[in-house]
């Protein structure tokens, strides 16, 4: 055996349980709440949450899931062009979102409805995007929550640049960049990590490893656990149980705090599972076994928190019924609001291309208006 082969053996640590991943037996996984809802300790990560906060987290998870279910239904009924479901990733998103402090900025992909929720974005402003009314109706500046970015990975560089701005402002804020497991293969994402490291930028990369990039399993993107990527760029990486909202909250809080204190970036791999299709256009039966989903159902992020809250007497049946009712109200509001959304005016497309409109585009707009006016009264 050559020296090199030896090294190969040393370094390559295949994704534990890849294919049919098992959370147990992953020594490098931060977990504070087991799939059975049992609170466990971790040497590096504690968490200090009140009962009130715990109930709040449960409410977040449940409402976000309810929204997601409603959106999927609306798409099936032809009311949305497409929907990217977060089913199964609620804890990763709510945990990350709730770790943000005022003034922190978040850069989502197209799936972070749970984070949008924690940032106070009206669900209807997300629905409008998937309905094709706009590209996201919320004010990204007011909410410190960027618009969704569809081009895989592009937002990780934006987050890094934004964090460089935070540094220049001398502000004590951090930036949270979301990305998927598939995104880690994009050159731009790797550049973002290189830049973040080089400038010690206060940015945390939050990667939801939901095991798939559409049909491509994580092994296609990386032969070693993703969180190990970071060390090669000179900053810490950590793998957290993405279905454990407490662990995610704790790990993300610590990483954001480190960023704010000037310690530079962290890469968080939230190990989770996309329980639904990639989007409503996708057919996961073509590329994965039903049994895999069944296994992951046992690790459901909401069930485990519910079990913990019940068992520890933090919440009672009334509470859960209340949240369910609130969910139904939310769903009804989302449905009604979606159906009632007015179509945008055709002239909208000309009006925001530039901050300073060009004469050429103004002319095209005029022509557009005149052309459509010419049909009026025709029918």
């Amino acid at each position, binding site marked *: 055996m050559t020296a090199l082969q030896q090294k190969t053996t040393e370094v390559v640590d295949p994704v534990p349980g890849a294919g049919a991943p098992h959370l147990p037996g992953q020594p490098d996984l931060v977990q504070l709440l087991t799939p059975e809802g049992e609170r466990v300790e971790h040497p590096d990560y504690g968490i200090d949450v009140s009962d009130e906060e715990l109930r709040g987290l449960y409410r977040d998870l449940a409402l976000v899931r309810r929204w997601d279910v409603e959106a999927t239904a609306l798409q099936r009924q032809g009311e949305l062009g497409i929907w990217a479901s977060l089913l199964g990733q609620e804890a990763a998103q709510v945990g990350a979102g709730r770790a943000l402090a005022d003034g922190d900025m978040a850069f989502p992909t197209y799936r972070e409805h749970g984070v949008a929720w924690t940032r106070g974005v009206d669900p209807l402003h997300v629905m409008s*995007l998937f309905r094709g009314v706009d590209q996201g109706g919320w004010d990204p500046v007011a909410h410190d929550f960027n618009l969704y970015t569809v081009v895989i990975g592009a937002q990780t560089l934006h987050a890094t640049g934004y964090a460089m701005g935070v540094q220049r402002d001398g502000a004590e804020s951090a930036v949270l960049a979301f990305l998927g497991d598939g995104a880690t293969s994009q050159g731009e994402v790797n550049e973002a990590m290189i830049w973040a490291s080089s400038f010690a930028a206060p940015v945390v990369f939050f990667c939801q490893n939901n095991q798939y990039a559409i*049909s491509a399993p994580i092994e296609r993107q990386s032969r070693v656990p993703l969180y190990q990527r970071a060390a090669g760029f000179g900053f810490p990486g950590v793998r957290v149980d993405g279905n454990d909202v407490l662990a995610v909250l704790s790990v993300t809080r610590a990483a954001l705090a480190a960023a704010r204190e000037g310690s530079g970036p962290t890469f968080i791999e939230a190990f989770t599972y996309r329980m639904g299709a990639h989007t409503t256009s996708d*057919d996961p039966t073509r590329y994965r076994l039903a049994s895999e989903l069944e296994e992951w159902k046992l690790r459901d992020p909401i069930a485990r928190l519910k079990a913990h809250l019940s068992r520890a007497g933090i919440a009672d049946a009334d509470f859960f019924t209340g949240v369910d009712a609130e969910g139904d109200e939310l769903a009804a509001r989302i449905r009604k609001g979606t159906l009632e959304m007015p179509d945008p005016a055709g002239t*909208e497309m000309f009006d925001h291309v530039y901050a300073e409109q060009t004469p050429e585009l103004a002319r095209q707009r005029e022509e*557009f208006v005149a052309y459509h006016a010419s049909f009026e009264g025709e029918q």
Partner: protein
Amino acid sequence: MTETLTIGKALNLGLRKAMEDDGKVVLMGEDIGKLGGVFRITDGLQKDFGEARVVDTPLAEAGILGTAVGLAMRGYRPVCEIQFDGFVYPAYNQIVTQVAKIHARSRGRMPMPIVIRIPFGGGIGAVEHHSESPEAYFAHTAGLKVVAVSTPADAYWGIQQAIASPDPVVFFEPKRRYWEKGEVDPDGSPDPLFGSRVVRGGDDVTVLAYGPMVKTALQAADAAAEEGRSLEVVDLRTLSPLDLDPVYESVRRTGRCVVVHEAPVTLGLGAEIAARVTENCFHSLEAPVLRVGGYDTPYPPSKLEEDYLPDLDRVLDAVDRAMGF
């Protein structure tokens, strides 16, 4: 024996045929294996040809094109699928600085028989980046060849011809027409890949289109006929090199020309065509070449795409203007 096929299925069969004919053909792309591609164009091919020939790649377009270059250098004929038009840009550096230039750089010692398949255009109600028409970016790039197909027959033959081409071909597929049907005769013989084709004869105005807009142009010709106007419709088919001789001939007869595409008008293919048609038919033109295309805006949210995209009425409007000039 002639079969009725959709454009999507014709592409699938054409790819299969090319893979059977030449063991060096390798398909590469995101989700093209088990899933068969998000549009199922490569459906069943990985099962039959294996993972070495139908490669599900990591999520990185520069990686797809860059490794395709290396495979081509090793004697393979890579066929790269870009999942949607708006996701070709991460690969732009490899396409413009490498794929397009390596034949010239090596003075012919390193051919680049790479096909870049791009489902393009709008009209499918999609979110941002899924409805674009980036063909001019490639047609302006020396060293590339660029085609757009509009029929199942052209899809079936065209993909095989593109793969057989010793030069890199950017192959635009009219995504919203994937499900439209037409006749394909696998025993017939194809028209040349790099040629345009008059698809409907007419006398009053020459209407040029390619890809998804050919159907629109033909619909416009039908409607115009009802009003007694006779449109000659040309399917450009090849965007680089352009094959405009049949167009010049037509315009010398009609004296009027309208070009239709979904891409923004400014510096779209219509610009080049207008310039050339004017230069070559100057004394025959009764009106300037008019262009119908997307506005100079980003592709809008899908609720506005009908307003954005050229349709039958906008083509007829341009025809009217050309006639009235």
